[in-house]
């Protein structure tokens, strides 16, 4: 296994040499676009609701969204598969080098892109650098009327105004599972835990796990379905692969 720091970046063109740690496989054929993952993600990660006025300005806050596409000319349009889109946890991420505050950095241990909220000063360079457009910015301290504060997840920071945020692959669950496994003196088993979006998906369109373990379900599905990575040609080395059949 080679991590980015071992490779000569300028030579990394294709994802073949790079193996991340955590990854996903998304089967777009079975995704019904029900948005359960979007709701579950908001609950798990303390994402505020921005309300309709700010939504109108394009300030929606989601860490995962369902992209819809169509083919053909009106009225003969045909909907194609829904495409769940979230941070691809790139191995060679365009968001990282542009941050002047080093608030978005690469975790060598978890092979994830971190967003350190308390370090972030809100320049929004990273969001402009992200080819997947998956980062959202806290334009305000959005109101959370009672009893909403009671359902905060205590393991996730409640972000303030002026801070960028994005999908973390539910890093709090990763830490929890790793800590539990270590207390029992074993490795984290495949499928022992999963992210909020994958857990809630009624169609099992999202599979999460270790991509550096060829035995894991996510590796096997990726191989079997020949999953493709989005915008791979940019050299971002994304850790999510998609499958779209029909």
């Amino acid at each position, binding site marked *: 296994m080679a991590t980015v720091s071992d490779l000569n970046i300028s030579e990394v063109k294709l994802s073949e040499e790079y193996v991340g740690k955590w990854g996903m496989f998304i089967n777009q054929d079975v995704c019904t676009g029900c948005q359960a993952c979007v709701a579950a993600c908001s609950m798990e990660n303390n994402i505020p609701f921005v309300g309709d006025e700010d939504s109108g300005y394009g300030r929606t806050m989601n860490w995962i969204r369902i992209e819809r596409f169509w083919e053909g000319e009106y009225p003969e349009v045909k909907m194609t598969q829904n495409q769940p889109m979230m941070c691809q946890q790139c191995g060679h991420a365009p968001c990282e080098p542009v941050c002047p505050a080093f608030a978005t950095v690469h975790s*060598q*241990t978890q092979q994830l892109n*971190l967003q350190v909220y308390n*370090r972030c000063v809100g320049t929004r360079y990273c969001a402009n650098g992200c080819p997947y457009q998956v980062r959202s910015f806290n334009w305000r301290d959005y109101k959370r009327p009672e009893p909403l504060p009671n359902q905060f997840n205590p393991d996730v920071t*409640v972000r303030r105004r002026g801070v960028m945020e994005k999908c973390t692959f539910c890093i709090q669950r990763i*830490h929890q599972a790793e*800590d539990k496994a270590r207390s029992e003196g074993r490795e984290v088993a495949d499928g022992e835990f999963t992210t909020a979006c994958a857990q809630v998906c009624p169609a099992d369109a999202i599979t999460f796990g270790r991509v550096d373990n060829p035995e894991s379900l996510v590796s096997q599905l990726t191989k079997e379905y020949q999953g493709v990575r989005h915008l791979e040609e940019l050299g971002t080395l994304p850790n999510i692969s998609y499958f779209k059949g029909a």
Partner: protein
Amino acid sequence: MIKRLFDWLKQPLGLVAVGIVFLAVFSAAVYGIALTQKAPDQPIQFPHNKHVGFGIQCLYCHPGASKGPNAGLPSQAKCWACHNQIARTQTSELLAPLKNAVESGTPIQWVPVAQVPDFVQFNHRAHIAAGKNCEDCHGDMTKVTVAENPQVFNMGFCLDCHVKTAGEDKVLLNKLADCGTCHY
């Protein structure tokens, strides 16, 4: 106008006035800083030194420390298991709030002392499993009466020990100094 003010301040009486103002601001600042360094008032002046002196283990009252992120504070039922049988409980001023709490069934509202901000995720279990002692971070509790912090839990305090712990081990250093270990 301003010039006249300066002229007035330069004469002896003015200098005394400046001195008084300076002293007032300075002592207010010192008082303010002193307030933040003092342990907060607790509903019961719980004496750690006495209880730890009896040989009660920290983990008897803070059992979460070896199991998970939070050490936890004991419920009044745990205090009552002993104090129920201690004659002094009925007479001591200090223990009146405990008696009231048990009789009325209302929980005791302890004021938090050891705390890190919301954006830091601390985990006791990993530290206790790695053989760290409570004293390393909380100081010698056998000497204090009411819990207080021997130091602020700032990032340098955490990282100093993490870097020392990792030593030459690059993989462990990567993990213990990784922003994602503490901030998410």
